[in-house]
């Protein structure tokens, strides 16, 4: 209960205004606000590492600066920026939003019942609780602690989002309950999964961020909300106990998956982009593999929003793409850079492995494949859906599924490469970690299934015989949506 209060008051409240600025009235605000708060706490820890200071003071300053910046932006941007967009359609849309929040919150609450047991996993203790105590102790404790060889086992270069959130909880309640830090991690896991869920629901009823994105018919909306709830339970299912005992793999995996859904799947808009950036930044500040995956995602998001075929000055276009990657990646990259400046490294690459690359590659392939059983089903859905429902997907303005698959394969390739060149004995390394390092890929693939579920639900219940008179200005362009004659979908055909 104490952790929930810290999540709501300590992280959610300072993150609320930026979350509303980014996402308007979308249900994702409920889950985005605490993650923005956690991101600000991570930036505060980054400052603590570099400058003699304490987390609480830094956090207060960072939260105040961010909130003032949002207010200043709103003032400069004028009334248009104040307009809180969300799912279009009045009370009906408000009802779908409310249903999404209730279903998603209810579904993430079920696995959280395990918090009664005070489970603290091995890494939750040896890495995250240890780092949270160091962050709580202030600049000197943090720097000397991370540089202390006796703490080498705790992978001292890991990013600060989770330790900062735990330290913030200790700042609120003191050190009387060590379970607070792992509980904060579990609650942040739930928020990240909630963000994935609300993204899937938005694929059903529309984000409302742009005029044309008004959502599908009721079967798609029902499927979206059901898929939203399901993905929250699936996220905890693929994480097994790691999701509820203070491990952070689900947090970076789900935050990165949320960035995929909001940045690469949902219709393009400035608000969806801002939401995706926020989740990408959270993933990059959670774990090293989260940072590597985030860089891939940010490149893909930049290419989706600023495609290579974009007209105009090439220099300007490439500069914009670079900014699209650099801005959200800045906190994570700054942490990684500062840590290396201080001479801090993890234990994965300290020594060369005696095993051959072939041995390591074989073991890694087998190990990873065992946790990607969903991939064939998702691939089948992609092939059938891509063949038959491309028009529906385009009319819904959802991104090309290839973006999602590239992000998934890119992340897996990075993790595969890490296992390949790392120094630890491969079989024990895989046994201890591959079920966690594949969580992102699993959540993304299950999300892909849920998205196709939404599109197919709409297609399966389409009333194909009802037609309306239509004026077509260009007969050749009339069927660019790919579904001839089905004008009852509720969205105008979109040419891309």
């Amino acid at each position, binding site marked *: 209960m104490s952790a929930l209060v810290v999540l709501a008051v300590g992280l959610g409240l300072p993150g609320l205004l930026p979350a509303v600025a980014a996402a308007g009235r979308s249900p994702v605000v409920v889950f985005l606000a605490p993650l923005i708060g956690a991101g600000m706490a991570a930036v505060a820890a980054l400052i603590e590492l570099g400058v003699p200071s304490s987390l609480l003071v830094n956090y207060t300053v960072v939260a105040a600066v961010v909130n003032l910046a949002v207010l200043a932006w709103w003032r400069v941007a004028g009334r248009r920026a104040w307009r809180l967009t969300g799912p279009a359609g009045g009370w009906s849309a408000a009802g779908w939003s409310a249903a999404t929040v209730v279903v998603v919150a209810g579904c993430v609450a*079920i696995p959280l019942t395990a918090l009664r047991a005070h489970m603290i996993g091995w890494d939750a203790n*040896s890495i995250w609780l240890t780092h949270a105590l160091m962050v709580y102790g202030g600049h000197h*404790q943090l720097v000397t602690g991370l540089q202390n060889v006796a703490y080498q086992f705790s992978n001292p270069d890991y990013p600060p989002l989770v330790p900062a959130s735990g330290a913030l909880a200790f700042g609120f309640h003191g050190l009387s309950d060590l379970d607070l830090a792992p509980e904060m991690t579990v609650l942040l896991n739930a928020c990240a999964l909630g963000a994935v869920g609300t993204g899937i629901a938005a694929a059903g009823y529309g984000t409302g961020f742009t005029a044309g994105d008004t959502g599908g018919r009721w079967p798609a909306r029902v499927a979206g909300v059901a898929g939203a709830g399901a993905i929250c339970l699936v996220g905890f299912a693929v994480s097994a106990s790691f999701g509820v005992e203070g491990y952070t793999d689900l947090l970076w995996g789900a935050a990165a998956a949320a960035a995929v859904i909001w940045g690469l799947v949902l219709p393009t808009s400035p608000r969806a982009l801002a939401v995706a950036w926020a989740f990408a930044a959270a993933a990059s500040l959670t774990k090293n593999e989260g940072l590597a995956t985030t860089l891939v995602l940010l490149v893909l998001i930049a290419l989706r929003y600023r495609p290579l075929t974009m007209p105009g000055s090439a220099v300007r276009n490439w500069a914009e793409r670079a900014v699209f990657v650099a801005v959200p990646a800045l906190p994570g990259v700054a942490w990684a850079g500062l840590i290396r400046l201080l001479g801090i490294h993890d234990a994965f690459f300290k020594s060369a492995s005696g095993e051959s690359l072939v041995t390591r590659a074989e073991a890694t392939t087998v190990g990873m494949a065992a946790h990607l059983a969903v991939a064939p089903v998702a691939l089948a859905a992609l092939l059938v859906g891509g063949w038959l429902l491309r028009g529906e997907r385009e009319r819904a303005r959802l991104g090309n599924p290839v973006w999602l698959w590239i992000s998934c394969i890119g992340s897996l390739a990075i993790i595969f490469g890490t296992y390949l060149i790392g120094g630890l004995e491969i079989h024990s390394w895989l046994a201890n970690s591959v079920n966690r390092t594949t969580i992102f890929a699993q959540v993304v693939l299950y999300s892909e299934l849920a998205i196709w579920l939404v599109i197919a639900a709409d297609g399966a219940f389409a009333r194909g015989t009802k037609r309306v*008179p239509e004026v*077509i200005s260009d007969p050749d362009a009339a069927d660019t949506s790919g579904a001839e004659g089905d004008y009852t979908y509720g969205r105008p055909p979109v040419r891309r």
Partner: protein
Amino acid sequence: MVAVRSWGDKLSVSLSERSRQVSKRVCCAGIVVAAAVTLGLSVHHGLQHTATLDRPSNIAADTTAFHQEECLYHAIRSEVPKGATVYVTSARWQYTQRLAELSTLWAVPQPTLATAQWRLSFVHARGHCDGLALKASRL
């Protein structure tokens, strides 16, 4: 050029178009079923796992382990002066790591015995922290 489709053209649905729509709906239903079953199986697995974790025996075991950790955390703070340099060592590496973790913010773990003022280890003992006790010896 502006072309206007008449109601008559719109309402005349050819057989081939109808059969295409039927096959499309069948495939849509197939995707819905495949996705729902796959997601449902995973949800079921997750709920089963949560139910396992929620068993009273599991909760009792995890709560005991947590209390043991808190007990050892407080033992370090009561037996070792604040700021002391300590060398942590135990028969099991897990205990050694745990000692370093629980010393954080109170004592300063040292990589070697040479610079340490205290030597800490966990030993099995009845009546202490659920089967473990802190052994702190001044060097």
